[in-house]
């Protein structure tokens, strides 16, 4: 029992990060049909900028804020200088552009920072908390709580604000949204900015546990993408569920089956799910009207 609980703690912590990356994918996908493969780099920037600002003597909360600003600016820059000039190109071209952007961001980060792994202190101590025979780090609670707050805030923004409604309208039907006077370019820029902020927050929350370096973005983008596909690409609830399920799958597979094949087990399950439900767990059935 305590063993199962330990695996669940591990899975949820890792899964919460996947969920936040998947959420970033979802936002931009909804606004433009583009899968933004630079999403992992936002997570990297969140961690690395905080590390270096903190090392330079900036207090941790301020360093984190700075990291979010940098990631948002990077997101907006990717949109302004990479996506916007190619406006009208098809989604595949834009996806390839985001891959190029992610390589550029990683390269610049490598020059500005360094190639080593780093961390900064956990927010509220390093002493694990014992829960029913299992142990969880205080920082894991920060990750889970932080992810919940981000999801809730995003939901409020989407449901309760005019700008959020514009994003949803654009996601539902871009042409119709433009016809009723919504500036879809602005909506897409907003999506990139918010994705940058979410990615940076994920990076800041998780770095004390997982460590960070300029190369962590690649794998996170891959796992986040898998989570978004599992949950149903374009669905925020699906993104969160997909991330948590992927994290749990990995932890349970490592714990009960074989740690060597845990990634394989997770991906086999994803393939099996997509085989039965091609739209993912929460995806809406896409009907192509001829």
């Amino acid at each position, binding site marked *: 029992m305590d*063993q199962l609980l*330990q*695996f669940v*703690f*591990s899975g949820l*912590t*890792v899964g919460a*990060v996947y969920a936040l990356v998947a959420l970033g994918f979802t936002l931009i996908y909804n606004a433009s049909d583009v899968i933004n493969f630079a999403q992992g780099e936002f997570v990297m920037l969140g961690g690395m900028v905080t590390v270096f600002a903190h090392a330079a003597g900036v207090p941790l909360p301020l360093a984190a804020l700075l990291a979010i600003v940098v990631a948002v600016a990077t997101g907006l820059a990717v949109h302004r200088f990479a996506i916007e000039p190619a406006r009208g190109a098809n989604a595949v071209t834009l996806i390839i552009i985001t891959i190029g952007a992610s390589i550029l961001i990683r390269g610049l980060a*490598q020059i500005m920072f360094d*190639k*080593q*792994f*780093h*961390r900064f202190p956990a927010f509220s101590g*390093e002493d*694990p908390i014992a829960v029913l025979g299992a*142990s969880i*780090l205080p920082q894991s609670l920060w990750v889970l709580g932080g992810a919940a707050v981000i999801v809730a805030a995003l939901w409020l923004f989407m449901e309760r604000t005019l700008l959020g409604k514009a994003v949803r309208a654009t996601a539902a039907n871009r042409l119709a949204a433009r016809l009723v006077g919504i500036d879809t370019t602005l909506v897409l820029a907003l999506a990139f900015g918010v994705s940058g902020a979410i990615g940076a927050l994920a990076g800041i929350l*998780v770095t004390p*546990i*997982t*460590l960070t*370096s300029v*190369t*962590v973005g690649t*794998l996170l983008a891959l796992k986040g993408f898998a989570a978004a596909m599992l949950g149903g690409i374009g669905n925020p609830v699906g993104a969160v569920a997909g991330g948590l399920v992927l994290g749990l799958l990995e*932890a*349970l597979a*490592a*714990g009960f089956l074989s*740690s*060597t094949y*845990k*990634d394989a087990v997770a991906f086999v399950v994803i393939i099996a799910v997509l085989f039965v439900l091609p739209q993912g767990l929460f995806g809406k059935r896409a009907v192509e009207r001829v």
Partner: protein
Amino acid sequence: MQRRQLIGGLAGAALLALATPSLAQAPIRIGSVLSVTGPASFLGDPEARTLRLYIERINQAGGVLGRRLELVLYDDGGDANRARTFATRLVEDDRVIAVVGGTTTGTSLAMIPVFEEAKIPFISLAGGIEIIEPVKPFTFKTPHTDKMACEKIFTDLRKRGLTRVGLISGTGGFGASMRNQCLRVAGDFGVQIVADERYGPGDTDMTPQLTRIRNVPGGVQAVINADFGQGPAIVTRNFAQLNMGVPLYQSHGVASRSFIELAGAAAEGVRLPAAALLVAEQLADNDPQKRVVMEYKQTFESTQNQPVSTFGGHAYDGLMILVEAIKRANSTDGTKIRDAIRATRGFIGTGGVVNMSATDHMGLDLSAFRMIEIRGGTWTLVD
């Protein structure tokens, strides 16, 4: 007109400046392919710094055989395919007389056939035992092997009377190779590997694996982690989180300052086998390595503004073994240098005392490894 003259004058001065230190003859070209960037950059970067630093110092002291040394260094980014391409370039275009480098076991193995065919001595800086076993005529290496790390750890375990051991290793090249070696030699030391867990290169949480090790029927008395990079730091933190209550052993792959910084308080009490360089100040004054490691440490740290690591030390050893061999061979002929490297006896490097032979192209024994424990956030010599 005046401007052109100025440029001409500058060019002449530059030529003169270049010509003065070069002593009449053409320089001796030494090649190197290192992983200065990419995932193994924390190994390759200090190696490249060391080679540049010491080749400059050797030249200032008058070069070798009255000739300057010239370093031709390429960065393979950790990619074995690129390493092989650069190896071919070193042989065919740059016409180097010997090569120091090959940061990882993978890149080294990819380059070996090129240098063997060209009969160019190659001193690898990678750990894997496959590089020198079976012995290849022109291939040598300076770092300790993962097999020696296992043997050193098992010797220490036996001394402490611990026999039931859990093994957790990364699936990358280093971790996989060391896992195999540990499984192979455990029996010789009366050690029983009762758990064998693994994790992927980018994994960020190893509590499931450690929980499995903790819950092995009959329990474990110690845990060994075979890997380098950020993995061991996370394992060490998870180990403390789960309050495992048994000794944790790491490999020589974590022998750098950054491991202690990343693992934080959790690193307290962790033991690892490592080269004497790590505990230079703590060596007894009559220790044969004391002078060499102190000198390298001070030279490196005063010029590079970063703490010394054992990986740069391997590059130092490789370069010095080569330079001494060239001097003894009194020639730049590949086969003669090879014979001279093979005849290296009693060379004191940062990695240990090197005694090469026709059947041993590394020349280190277990005495080259020191057992080190992390106490109070720093390395402490245990024996």
